[in-house]
């Protein structure tokens, strides 16, 4: 691990309860749900991690606790280093606080995670759907949401699918 990154990781793990992991050169810290904003603020102010390029979520469906992991990737333009955080989110009551007060770019990223996964960000200024229409039901990127594909039309089932398929009229 790089020395500057090592210093940042030790600075954080001294103050908060985190678990460190390293895989193929990427350093990931597993942080508790309620301390994400504080950790981000410390990293932003003291260790020069000034942008948040990556913010996404992963669904581990058959596991209910934690069902989601919200992944943050922070980048420093001075030292050119990436640091990743993972915060577990519960399945029944998916809430986590927003990091919008530290990084404004989290605004739209969290809207997208709310739209596609259903995780509610407490304190967000404008939590609406981003990609799907506003009255869409369900959260598409969850593992229990079906892909919604159309059955392929071969010669043996051509007519029965043709009857079901909607056709536009003039």
């Amino acid at each position, binding site marked *: 691990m790089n020395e500057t990154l090592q210093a940042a990781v030790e600075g954080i793990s001294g103050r908060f309860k985190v678990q460190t992991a390293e*895989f*193929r*050169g*990427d350093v*990931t810290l597993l942080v508790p749900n309620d301390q994400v904003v504080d950790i981000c603020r410390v990293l932003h102010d003291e260790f020069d991690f*000034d*942008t*948040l*390029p*990556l913010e*996404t979520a*992963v*669904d581990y469906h058959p596991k209910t606790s934690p069902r989601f992991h919200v*992944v943050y*990737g922070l980048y420093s*333009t001075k030292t*050119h280093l*990436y640091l*990743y955080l993972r915060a577990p989110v519960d399945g029944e009551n998916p809430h986590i606080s927003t990091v919008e007060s530290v*990084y*404004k*770019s989290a*605004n*739209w*990223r969290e809207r*997208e995670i709310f739209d596609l996964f259903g995780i509610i960000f407490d304190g967000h*200024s*404008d939590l*609406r*759907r*981003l*990609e*799907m*229409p*506003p*009255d869409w039901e369900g959260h*598409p*990127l969850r593992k229990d949401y079906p*892909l919604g594909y159309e059955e392929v039309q071969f010669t043996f089932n051509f007519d029965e699918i043709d009857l079901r398929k*909607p056709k536009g009229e003039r």
Partner: protein
Amino acid sequence: MREIQEFSLDDLKHLLSPRALTGETVVLNMGPQHPSTHGVLRLILELDGETIVNCIPDIGFLHTGIEKNMESKTYMKAEVMTDRMDYLFTLGNNLTYALAVEKLVGIPVPPRADSVRVILTELSRISSHLIWIGTSALDLGAMSVFLYAMREREMILDIFELVSGQRMMTTYIRPGGLWRDVPVQFNELLQQFIDIMPKRIDEYESLLTHNSLFLERTQGIGVIDIPTALNWNVSGPTLRAAGMAHDLRKTNPYCGFEQYDFEVPTQTTGDVYGRYLVRVAEMRESVKIVQQALDKMPMGPSLTYDNKFIPPPRSEIGVSMESLIHHFKYWTEGFLPPAGSVYAAVESPRGELGVFLESDGGPKPYRVHYRTPSIPLISAFSILAKGHMVSDMVAIISSIDLVLGDADR
């Protein structure tokens, strides 16, 4: 079929000023089908006369569900969908995915494949900037620049067609190297292109750079400063025009970029004119990189030889039983990478294009997320457009070089 979703003023009142509710300012919809919004972007503008007070972008009109669809295909088959996201920088999307899979699995790439990858992505960058200069000049009224830019782009698409058979969605850069080695005419065709291009860039500059109408419409418009840009995570030429020389090809190099000698152009004004100058200079630097890569291109294989994760070469399948078995398992089941998550990023003409790839040990990716540069650009748009007039907004949209396929995925 659904109905069109109308927003009422109540839904948006936390984003509009209080004058909108009394009717003092007009709330106007600049809908998804409009000649000057590049792609399907919907803007809800709050106008006081002709000045913009607030601007709310609404995206999602091109949402394709690529990330969910990639989870149901194996790693190689999912790559086909990646070209179609940022459809102006097609080889860059492939490259990012290939870098992420190589990082996850831990396989090296031969140096010949690296230099061909560099050549093709820089050509892709030039073609994206050509479309940008054509359409942005077209928006401001200069139609001949569009026709000249498309003429050069045809030369680049000829090179792509020679190499892969397809003009745009090539899927040529695969994990482990390239799909196939380049044909023999590649060097000659590329050298012809490199010889012609700098004079053509001079032609575009002679039409626009000192044109007083262009200067009036673009100087001082849509200014952004560095701290705001970093907080909103704006990257690419928009950040470089504001003054920060940040380029992922220099700071976190990939594919052997450290051996090429090129500069990172910056300006300090941060306005539309600054972004124009930065992109034109970037086109020149890309031509230099392509020339250096062509001169230094080594001979050698174009695909790593690793039977567990890369398809074996065609010539071996007829003679070796193990290769045949590996080929069969590869194309029916797919390969099994180790479990874990990686992130790989590339510099696209719009900013930082990255892939977050998580695998659980199975043959299909468990979660693929593309971190695309257009989303922060559109969300920062509400700051860039405040206080300007509607016709300036057209110039701003074309200068931040949006691609909606990138934003919506």
